[in-house]
């Protein structure tokens, strides 16, 4: 009887338990039908900065400029081999607590109970940008279980919250490091980056888990992995239904889409909770979908 807690207000939910993946209706069908989630190329990210290596050569010798360009290009190519899987998270309650309490002081008890603002499935910009302007879907995953799925697929991964910064500060490459880097890039660039990532975690955090403040409303948590291939979507996690614990549909999803989704879920996803997000005047709430085919024996639905 604990399942309902997925939809609890931010002050009542277990922090870091869930991850949220916003997507369009069509992509959601693919994900659910194939029961897989694909890592995407870092180089295909919609954040232009993601594609840029944030390094600077600490050398005043202008002759080395060409060498720097060479290194820069080398690192940028490697980015094609880096795959990311992005989710949103619940807001860090400790950080928003004072605002949350202040807001609640203006609300009735019932409004406080239904208000899910701050939850990872209630991010208006995510619904607008990634979920087809509120026509799409937000998949709710159990974080621990999704990591079990990744492990089962024998994928080496790093996962953590994205840090948001006002400015990037480049990693400085000293003259002494140049030879080693050039050698690395010339021989096996992917192994080279993997090696740095393992030995210098700051490097990986800074390059792959740092974004500008502009993106902070995404509350992003991401997993990265490396792929020898540069084929789009070649790294995928299977059997994700075991980690999927709820689906939220957008406020504007049409009845036909809803019905198709219900039919798909009725076949093998019986225990899954399907809800709809509703943005009210002051609060945001989750409501049940009074549907016809949600479960067998739907006449029992009161």
């Amino acid at each position, binding site marked *: 009887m604990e*399942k309902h807690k997925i939809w609890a207000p931010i002050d009542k939910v277990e922090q870091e338990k869930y991850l949220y993946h916003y997507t369009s209706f069509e992509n959601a069908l693919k994900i659910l039908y194939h029961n897989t989630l694909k890592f995407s190329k870092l180089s295909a990210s919609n954040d232009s900065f993601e594609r840029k290596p944030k390094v600077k050569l600490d050398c005043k010798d202008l002759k080395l400029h060409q060498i720097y360009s060479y290194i820069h290009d080398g690192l940028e190519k490697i980015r094609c081999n880096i795959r990311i899987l992005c989710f949103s998270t619940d807001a860090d309650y400790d950080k928003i607590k004072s605002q949350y309490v202040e807001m609640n002081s203006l609300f009735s008890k019932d409004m406080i109970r239904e208000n899910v603002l701050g939850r990872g499935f209630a991010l208006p910009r995510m619904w607008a940008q990634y979920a087809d302007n509120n026509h799409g879907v937000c998949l709710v995953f159990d974080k621990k279980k999704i990591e079990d799925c990744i492990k089962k697929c024998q994928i080496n991964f790093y996962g953590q919250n994205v840090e948001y910064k006002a400015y990037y500060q480049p990693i400085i490459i000293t003259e002494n490091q140049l030879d080693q880097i050039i050698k690395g890039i010339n021989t096996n660039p992917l192994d080279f980056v993997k090696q740095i990532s393992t030995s210098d975690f700051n490097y990986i955090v800074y390059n792959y888990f740092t974004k500008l403040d502009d993106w902070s409303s995404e509350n992003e948590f991401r997993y990265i992995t490396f792929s020898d291939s540069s084929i789009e979507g070649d790294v995928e996690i299977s059997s994700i239904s075991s980690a999927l614990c709820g689906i939220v549909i957008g406020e504007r999803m049409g009845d036909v889409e809803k019905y198709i989704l219900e039919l798909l879920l009725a076949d093998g996803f019986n225990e899954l909770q399907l809800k709809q997000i509703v943005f009210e005047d002051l609060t945001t*709430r989750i409501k049940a979908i009074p549907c016809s085919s949600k479960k067998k024996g739907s006449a029992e639905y009161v």
Partner: protein
Amino acid sequence: MSKNRKNRKEPAYLRNFTRDVLQRKIWLEESYAKEHSNTIDGLKVLTETLNKYIQDLNLEICRNIPYISLKPTTGADDAVRMFIRQQAQFDEPSFMLQIGEHYIGLTHFIDLFVSEGVFELDHPSNEVFDAEIIFNSDYTRMVIIDIFLDVAMFNSYSFLRDADTEEKQAFSKKKYEYFRSHHLSTCFDEVGENLDYYSFAFSCHDISEETTFSINLEKYRNIWEDFIHEYYPNSVHKERPIEQQLKMRVDKHLPSDYHNEFDDKEPGIYFVLRLNRADLSPDIHGQLLPILGGKDVGFSNLKIVTKTELSKYGKLLRELYISAFKVVKQEKDSIKSVAKNEEAKPQKSGNNHCYKIAVSFTSKYREKYVEPFCNALLKLGYSKDDIFYDNWHKVRFNGPNGGEIMQNIYKNDCRMIVVLLSPDYIERRWTGINEWPVIEGLINSRQSDKICLLSVDSVDLESISAYIKTYGIVEDVSNMRPDEIAKFINDFYNDRIISH
């Protein structure tokens, strides 16, 4: 499916043949009613489940528990007991205006607020309601069934059913008090303080269960019994006369003097059986003939069977080949005998289990352990009348046959025995000769479920009993605080005594 209720295959077959059915309504807020247009079908299924629970209770309890008929409505009337809404901001002024004239007559009125992430029982948002239940839509059926199951149980006691509105409202508060004072488990994540309402069914769900939300009926019955025993010790339920009960049967096939058939029967639960369907296959006909008797099976053949006998006909009942109607024959002198008992004994009575907990111990451990944990039990809501601790009931066993009286308490007049085993327990005359043989007798006669074993000072269990040494689990309380020991005893009482 046939539209005729009598011809439908329903699990609550007893419900089909009685008029003892309460009509109740659920008020659906406009937007909720609009979005849940299949509510009427949903309520039918829900009512069948609810009545199946009532039937299961009716098969066990020697009272007539009325069945329930539920209907949705979108306005106030006297049959409304709950209001379902799914928005925090609903049209409250209009709602208050509608409820106005019915408010005074309502015994209880619950606000059900569907909010997906919260499952709480709390104070209502306005003075019309007795409580507010905030719940996930997946629990709708569970919450409604829980509330109306308590309505049915309430109406099965004549002294509650016949009480005035004020007393009925006080009754709702008492259930909450009982829930708190007995530290009952609950299906809610949170329950508010000093509420005016509680349904005992809320405490009878297996909370690890994710889908069916079924109710542990045995626990439910025990809680009700214990509650009535504690809060209404002097009240006596008067069942309707058998003649009147028979009039509640839906058909008129019974002879007018049929109640005389019960004259020679012992008090208890009976069922009047009759053929219900004419479309009999030879196989069914063959099965019915020995049951209903006579040369041929017909509608005029009537038979009275006991509860045990009824259970043999399960399939025929479920398929509605036979109609069954419950009749309760109450002990004629029950009212007098209970009243007499009350007079003779100041303690709660009505059955043999006078005390909830009796304690067996040696005097050496009185001050350090027994008195402190008995006092701690008082803080958990027990009264001195609930606990047989000798210092509190000296008059009860004073006299030459005090040992015998005490043995009788351990044997018959308590629901649970706490035995504090100590190194001197067997050697002491009082415990070794008077008390332990009775306790051992209970163990041998398979009544060990009521015995809670505690130990102190590294007692050698072999010196007490080889059986206990081999099979027993004994809680060492040497290093526990009195409140911890009391909690252990209270948990034992709730889990092992009330639940079973």
